[in-house]
């Protein structure tokens, strides 16, 4: 490379760097401060990879129950669906995103527990889910939770469901942990794994996917109670507004509709809508 070219490359790199900084600056202005008021945009954290709850489709739109709830709540807060900026909220990042103010609220299969409630405030709960198992549709050997003990189970590395299996539900069972649910599903399909376990809402979302229809069924065991709440920054006034919105969503039937739309095809028997502030242990 001759010196002239080198200078050119240097200028290009510097320009790219400056550009990326300025873009980052814009992002901060748009995303962070939007707690209603003069700013029309609202930023919501969801999962991007959970069919039925929060899924980013290849054409860039978002589907799922969490998305529907968030859209309804945002509408009640005075934001059109077009003004919602969706951000991916991975499980480990959720508290940090709220504390930093990256998002206004989070609807991302966010179970309320004491450790989390110390860091953030929860509106809702808006859904009562249970840990359950997904088994092959032709598998009749698993009819009650104790049947799981000599089976091969699969869940996501480090998740609450995986830990629950190890310590409480079926300590004798073999547990395979993978980075994502899709690896478990491959194993379930070809018989290496007998059951995939996590929240029934997530399982129903997978079972309802086009390519898995009719292949899997839910066990229907209530192995734990997961109260999905909407996470907001500690002390935020949004909590009360979101609670009002959630109550309205249940009252006008949109809640029921969203459940049917997202979980219906999997034969998922949902719990009645939970009462605001009532956490089922």
């Amino acid at each position, binding site marked *: 490379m001759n010196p002239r070219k080198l200078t050119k490359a240097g200028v290009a790199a510097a320009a790219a760097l400056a550009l990326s900084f300025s873009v980052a600056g814009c992002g901060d202005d748009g995303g962070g401060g939007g707690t209603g008021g003069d700013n029309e945009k609202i930023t919501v954290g969801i999962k991007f990879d959970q069919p039925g709850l929060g899924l980013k489709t290849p054409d860039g739109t978002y589907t799922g129950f969490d998305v529907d709830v968030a859209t309804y709540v945002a509408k009640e807060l005075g934001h059109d669906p077009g003004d919602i900026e969706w951000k991916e909220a991975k499980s480990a990042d959720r508290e940090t995103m709220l504390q930093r103010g990256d998002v206004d609220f989070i609807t991302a299969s966010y179970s309320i527990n004491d*450790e989390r409630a110390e860091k953030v405030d929860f509106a809702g709960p808006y859904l009562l889910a249970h840990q359950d198992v997904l088994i092959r549709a032709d598998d009749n050997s698993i009819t009650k939770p104790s049947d799981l003990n000599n089976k091969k189970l699969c869940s996501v590395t480090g998740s609450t469901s995986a830990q629950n299996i190890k310590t409480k539900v079926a300590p004798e069972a073999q547990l395979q942990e993978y980075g994502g649910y899709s690896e478990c599903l491959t194993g379930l399909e070809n018989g290496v794994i007998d059951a995939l376990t996590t929240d029934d809402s997530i399982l129903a979302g997978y079972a309802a996917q086009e390519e898995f229809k009719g292949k899997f069924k839910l066990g229907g065991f209530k192995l734990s109670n997961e109260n999905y709440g909407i996470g907001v920054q500690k002390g935020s006034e949004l909590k009360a507004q979101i609670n009002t919105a959630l109550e309205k969503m249940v009252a006008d039937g949109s809640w029921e509709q969203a459940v049917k739309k997202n979980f219906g095809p999997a034969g998922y028997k949902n719990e009645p809508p939970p009462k605001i502030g009532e956490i089922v242990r």
Partner: protein
Amino acid sequence: MFDFLEGYDLLGAFWVTVQLTVISAIGSLIWGTLLAAMRVSPVPLMRGFGTAYVNVVRNIPLTVIIVFTSLGLFQTLGVSMGAKDFTTINFRLAVLGLIAYTAAFVCEAVRSGINTVPVGQVEAARAIGLDFPQVLRLIVLPQAFRSVVGPLANVLIALTKNTTVAAAIGVGEAALLMREMIENEAQLILISVIFAVGFICLTLPTGLLLGRLSKKVAVKR
């Protein structure tokens, strides 16, 4: 401040990390040396295989290799490594993946060591009637290893940290426990720092000890 650590087997998790590291290190040292021998051997087929192996394997992300051992070898092809329960199967698959990957880097380090041995010595060895394996075993490799202790220490430190990828197929080592703790405790930064310090405790002594060893055994030319 640290009362959330209660109920977690931190030492047990790091012990699995150490086991993964040591077994994979021994395995990749052997396989890597064999690969290096192939790459300098007079047989074109072996040279070709050695070169192809190194260039393919070292350019595949480790995560892909590790996940492939589980999804491809175990789930699809039914290779269970002579074990019945998931814990043992996954551990052995992870060791296999780590050896396959790290050996490529060991091979290149050893080969660079072989290049430090003056050609005259090899010619002299051949002149007194030693064949290729003998030249390698008696003359070249002993000197080569002494000059690559430093680079091999680098590979070992990288391997220690690479063992965290084994969490992707559910081996219960440090990174898996870290994910469990982050899930339960909502203490992201503190937990990350604890595990970072744990890894430094493993790798810093390795680096210092092997650094001193490399100075001591280096061939003065």
